[in-house]
């Protein structure tokens, strides 16, 4: 490999080079195939678009949050984005101590609003509702399945929406599609017990498949990828719907079994939040990602575009409109409350 030395790359926009944009992950790390990763993508997009100086800090454990937050403040960041509800305490503390720095926090909202903290929340139950409806419409066996990593609201909100979507489908069509793995009334269901063990996730999905589910909705990060693997291994009998990101992009190897994904628009929200600070338009109003503002959405069907009946697509659009218009209301308690 004897190329020539590349010229110094100064072409990119570095209009705001002395503006420091900073991000702290939670203990899942930026490679969690989930909210850290997606948020980070939005962060990168903002940095690129505005020519900012990026500083990122991954947390290996809960112990690292205060340390990383302090380090960010010390690094003279202009805006600090914290990812995950576990960082809330550290964020609130840093924000109160440093009123000149702007903060944004993903998936959490301080109990009482803080002047310089913008909470970014997402009502993914809405898009999950669509996903449930879609799954019910696509299921041949009349059974769809879901499982989570841990029984925590950021996970169960998806499962709630999904289950409600299926129920709505049954009501509309007088069908009886069953949801395996989650009973939203009892708030009880199937969990892999963590987010790391992919093999366990796969086996968990396999158990749903054995019970007859032909569409799997795994909400378990890397462990959930095992669910996609289980679908892939079924050779077309079973398909899946991914969460957080568009699975056809973030886990492209599984695109062939992905009907769609429930996108949680953390990337856009984070990007917007950072941009607003650069542009001096920051406010501390809680952002709630909804179908309406695109903060959550159903991803394109990609390879399933031709397989999803046009009628179903139309119905999904109607549902979206109804949800936005408030004609359909969701019950999930995990939905973010506007503060």
């Amino acid at each position, binding site marked *: *490999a004897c*190329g020539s030395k*590349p010229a110094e790359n100064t072409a990119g926009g570095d209009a705001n080079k002395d503006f420091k944009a900073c991000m702290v992950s939670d203990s899942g790390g930026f490679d969690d195939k989930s909210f850290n990763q997606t948020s980070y993508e939005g962060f990168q997009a903002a940095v690129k678009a505005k020519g900012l100086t990026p500083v990122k*800090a991954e947390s290996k454990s*809960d112990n*690292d949050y205060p340390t990383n937050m302090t380090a960010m403040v010390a*690094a003279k960041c202009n805006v600090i984005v914290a990812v995950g509800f576990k960082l809330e305490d550290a964020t609130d503390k840093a924000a109160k101590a440093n009123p000149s720095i702007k903060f944004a926090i993903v998936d959490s909202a301080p*109990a009482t609003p803080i002047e310089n903290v913008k909470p970014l929340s997402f009502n993914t139950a809405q898009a999950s509702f669509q996903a449930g409806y879609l799954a019910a419409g696509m299921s041949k066996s009349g059974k769809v399945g879901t499982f989570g990593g841990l029984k*925590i609201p950021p996970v169960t909100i998806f499962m709630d929406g999904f289950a409600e979507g299926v129920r709505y489908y049954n009501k509309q069509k007088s069908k009886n599609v069953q949801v395996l793995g989650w009973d939203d009334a009892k708030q009880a269901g199937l969990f892999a017990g963590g987010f790391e063990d992919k093999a366990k996730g796969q086996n968990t999905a396999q158990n749903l498949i054995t019970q007859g589910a032909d569409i799997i909705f795994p909400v378990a990060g890397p462990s959930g990828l095992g669910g996609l693997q289980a679908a892939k291994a079924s050779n077309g009998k079973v398909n899946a719907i991914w969460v957080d990101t568009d699975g056809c992009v973030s886990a492209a190897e599984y695109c062939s079994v992905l009907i769609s994904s429930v996108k949680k628009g953390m990337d856009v929200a984070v990007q917007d939040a950072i941009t607003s600070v650069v542009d001096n338009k920051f406010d501390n109003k809680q952002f709630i990602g909804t179908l309406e503002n695109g903060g959550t959405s159903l991803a394109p069907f990609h390879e399933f575009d031709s397989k999803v009946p046009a009628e179903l697509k139309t119905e999904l659009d109607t549902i979206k409109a109804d949800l936005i218009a408030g004609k359909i209301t969701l019950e999930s308690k995990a939905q973010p409350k506007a503060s």
Partner: protein
Amino acid sequence: MSIDTTTEPAQVPAEPQPAKPGRRPLPGWAVQSLVSLSAIVLALLVGAILIIIGDDQVKTAVGYFGAAPMDTFSAAFSAVGDSYQALASGALGGITPITESLTQATPLICGGLAVSLAFRTGLFNIGAQGQLIIGAILAAWVGFAWHLPPGIHLVVAILAGLIGGALWGGVVGLLKARTGAHEVIVTIMLNYVAVYLLQWLLTTTTFKRPGREDPISPIVDANAQYPQFGSTRLHVGFLLALVAAGFVWWLLNRSTVGFELRAVGANADASRTAGMSVGRAYFVAMLVAGALAGLAGTQQVLGTDLPLTDGVAASVGFDAITVALLGRGTPLGTVLAGLLFGALNAGGLQMQLQTQTPLTLTTVLQAVIVLFVAAPALVRSIFRFLPKERGIGAVLAKGWNG
């Protein structure tokens, strides 16, 4: 208090060795310091290689190596230099870094003591993680659900943590004493049970933060928090860790109970013959070890503004094993090893911040340091100038049979 991390494990005292007269130009501890120092140097070399192969600028420069070979080397040098400079400044470069290092070291020391104490009794305590979790659960609960006057609240919360850890450790000792159940299996399994217990509790209204659905507890009352030193994150828990180390030293070397524990650890049959109760020793050792791990748990929830979450134990319980081993099972050694690891953790965060070096590098560094410190013969075969150490470092656990 200033600490030179690089020489820390040096002062780890050797276990009593049969004194063999002979020409020895250097005292044993000096030889050990040199070996430990060399081990750290070697580990940093290994780390440097990893930094170089992972560095983007180096990767780019290698791409046109033929055109400008020096670029590769200068990129490599600057990558390594920048990283290690960041590491050092993050660990020791001023009051804040040093207090950060000490804060990080605090639970590692207590956890390490929990493992060490069990080791000296012939038990391999893989369960510090679980013991810590239970300790943290109880301490946090007392901390936020009870409301007591200043001082008393903290003491009660600490006691709750100690009791929680002691319970979880004691079960292991009890099962081992009564049924012979191997502590390695039981501690591994109880770690998982503790994690799931914690996850479950965090979904209950008792533990959930009011107004929140997330699995996160309230932060403990101010009354239940360890007082902090000035504006730093360093808290009184650190002093407690040192006190705990002193206590373990006293227990092992100056108390009748410790005499019994050590005897059982070194030769259970002879101890039994001498009228000691081996089962009781196992129970007591695990009870105290659990309490020490529980103390580490209190430091997590009462010390550093952390609420109770499913990640409250971080990986302290497992790092504690490495710390104990690096400290050769002695209290002083454990403290020094804990400080070294704390410094590496704090420095690693800074290194990531400044040079984007992943935190996993710190993990590799820690492993390689322990590996070399444990193999003085290897270090010596690389650095030929090192004098010969008498005897090989103390052997902690001889095997599964105690």
